[in-house]
């Protein structure tokens, strides 16, 4: 055996066990993962034991790992509809008893799940396998300089091209757009999920509202695009992920305004992969990452809101919370008064009807 080969084997034998003992967290990358690194990993008892890996969302890779039996991700950061499907299909492990036992209660002794319900959330089966992270939202924003006179401040304005002529930036899939259109049609934001689930023809109504602006839409597909579109004047307002708008305002000196009415709140969860190689260490980290303190900490680095209601007062009472003495509350999507005009997206409904509606949305776009 050559010396080189021996050395190689030696190195791999020595280092592989170490590499395997780190908890691997698959997340979305970019500024988001950076904020997780700072808020969750760096504040953890053993920061070096947490390794983040980037992925593009969805359950495709998780399913491939679990089906083939070679699981390398201990924890996956997923959307709620994926949390539900993953938990139902057994791609994620049911840790509801661990969550009940080990999660940190809120300041008034409420359990973690109660703390989440205080934020307007409802139990779904994803809660059995996953712990909460943050709220992010589809929010409409604009550059106030582009509106010398009256400024838009509602969904009705967003869908009214006569009152505010100009192009709008909208994403190429249906989630969030449908709900906003319902609000523009006069449905109270909080009632939108119920109306969508129970009223036949509600979807048709949403598409009719969307028809009003269809000729004035620029469709985007990557999170950075709506910012570019508004900055370059390509569109006068756009739907974007609120974290992107917050970063532009806080770090790049932009002065974008949000239209909080009709914002569509979506969530992020950390879920335990079935057959995770470092199961116990992973659960310990998940419990740390779901404390109200850790969630409030994340808001320092990206303007996504803590999913536990008790995280909000921590930010509010300690302003300026952001680095460099900036106030974070103006950018938090889930303050009590903003929740009143928001839609909390219903992941169960979307995992039921998402495919069909997205096909219809694509047909609508292309026509």
């Amino acid at each position, binding site marked *: 055996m050559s010396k080189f080969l021996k050395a190689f084997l030696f190195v791999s034998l020595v280092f592989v066990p170490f590499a395997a003992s780190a908890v691997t967290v698959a997340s979305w990358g970019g500024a988001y993962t950076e904020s997780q690194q700072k808020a969750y990993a760096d504040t953890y008892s053993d920061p070096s034991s947490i390794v983040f890996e980037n992925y*593009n969302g969805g359950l495709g890779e998780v399913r491939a790992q679990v089906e083939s039996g070679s699981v390398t991700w201990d924890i996956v950061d997923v959307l709620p509809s994926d949390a539900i499907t993953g938990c139902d299909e057994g791609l994620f492990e049911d840790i509801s008893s661990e969550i009940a036992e080990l999660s940190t209660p809120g300041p008034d002794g409420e359990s973690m799940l109660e703390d989440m319900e205080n934020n307007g959330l409802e139990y779904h089966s994803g809660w059995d396998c996953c712990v909460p992270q943050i709220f992010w939202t589809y929010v409409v924003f604009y550059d106030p300089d582009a509106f010398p006179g009256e400024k838009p401040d509602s969904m009705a304005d967003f869908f009214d091209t006569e009152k505010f002529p100009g192009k709008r930036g909208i994403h190429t899939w249906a989630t969030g757009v449908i709900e906003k259109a319902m609000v523009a049609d006069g449905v109270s934001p909080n009632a939108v999920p119920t109306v969508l689930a129970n009223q036949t023809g509600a979807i048709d109504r949403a598409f009719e509202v969307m028809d009003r602006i269809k000729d004035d839409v620029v469709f985007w597909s990557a999170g950075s695009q709506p910012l570019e579109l508004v900055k*370059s004047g390509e569109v006068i307002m756009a739907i974007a992920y609120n974290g992107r708008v917050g970063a532009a305002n806080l770090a790049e000196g932009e002065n974008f305004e949000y239209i909080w009415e009709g914002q569509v709140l979506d969530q992020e969860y950390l879920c335990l992969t079935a057959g995770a190689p470092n199961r116990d260490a992973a659960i310990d980290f998940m419990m740390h990452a779901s404390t109200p303190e850790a969630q409030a900490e994340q808001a320092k680095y990206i303007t996504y809101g803590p999913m536990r209601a008790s995280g909000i007062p921590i930010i509010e009472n300690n302003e300026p919370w952001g680095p460099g003495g900036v106030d974070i509350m103006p950018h938090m999507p889930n303050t009590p008064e903003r929740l009143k005009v928001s839609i909390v997206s219903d992941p*169960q409904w979307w995992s039921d009807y998402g495919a*069909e509606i997205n096909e219809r949305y694509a*047909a609508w776009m292309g026509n």
Partner: protein
Amino acid sequence: MEVTISTAELLTTDGIPLKQSLRKAERRNKLRAFLLVFPLLLFIIVTFVMPIGDMLLRSVDDSQINSVFPNTFEEYKNWDKGADELPPEEVYKSLFFELANGDKRQIGKALTRMNYAKSGWKSLIKKTSREIKKIVKKGEEPVSYKDTFIKINKFWGDPTYWYSFNQMVNDRSSIYYWNALDRTFDEDGDVVLQDEKRRMYIKTWLRTFKVSVYVTIFCLILGFPVAHLLANLPLRYSNLLMIFVLLPFWTSLLVRTTAWIVMLQQNGVINGILVWLGVISDDGRIQMVYNEAGTLIAMTQILLPFMILPLYSVMRVIPKSHMRAAQNLGAKPAMAFWRVYLPQTIPGISAGGLLVFVLAIGYFITPELVGGKDGKLIGSWIAYHLKTTLNWGLCAALGGILLGIMLIFYWLYNKIVGIDNIKLG
């Protein structure tokens, strides 16, 4: 006259018949050759044949759900839809027990599958399962399983949910292929068009096809003169020019795509120049990106090197004397080009055209970013179903059709041009 052939065998020096000895040597050579290519063969089988085989299997496989609800599906086949509005009691009863006793994860997987057949199955089954487990726990035995189901949720009295079983009751099914072509099964299991509002696959297929053909043609039109220039310039100039072809080729796909957005958008460089020149008015800025035009332009530029490089390597070895000879013999330049030069470039055109077309038809990132409202290709949908809906059967069917189209093209190409007429250098 008869020829006599000696029947005595020829022997080698060590007494073995020559034939046998030769055969042995040949066998050894063959074995050695085989061992040399064996790693490659193994590699191809593992990374190419097996995944494609697996994909094609998945596109017709529906066995998972059939292993979860075998009795229900068996009873379902006895339902006379003409006579009864709802399935017979036995169907409800079998489903009751299969939900009550089934493995939670297997049911979870099955209901992801059921939801493809009809949206809403997921919640319906989950809610019903919970209720059924309660009933079983209490030890009650329902008098009528049908009424119990309908009492749990009124949708169990809605025959359209039951009709969707038609898409799942067989272990092997063609439903995914039909779905990929905007079609589905009706209550009798006949193929019918999908609901009009959600028909988009056929349209996307045609668009994918159209864009790929256009991109190939544009690449040929733009690439041919460039390749010709490169092939005929003195080496030091052509090397310099070659860098202009290769540099974009080596640049990240995302960078080039984003650059095109900057160039083409309504407040972008090209529109700006046109307005400045007075060609178009400020209100009349042209929408060149976030639509099909954007996809065409960006993809043509990105795939151009795949046309230029094979063309160049073929053109470089065409002797210049051929054109001179043709002209000496009286052909006008155009005629000489058409009759002498062009035919010799066919192998390059074929190679480049096939390369560009194959790459274009499965393209994903660029159309996704610049495609906007009507510039997305079928690759986007494969990615969507792979990641988001987990409908791998439909993914596989879409991929299978893509593969089929390629094979048809390959066959056509072979008929018309001949596959041995392809050359990369």
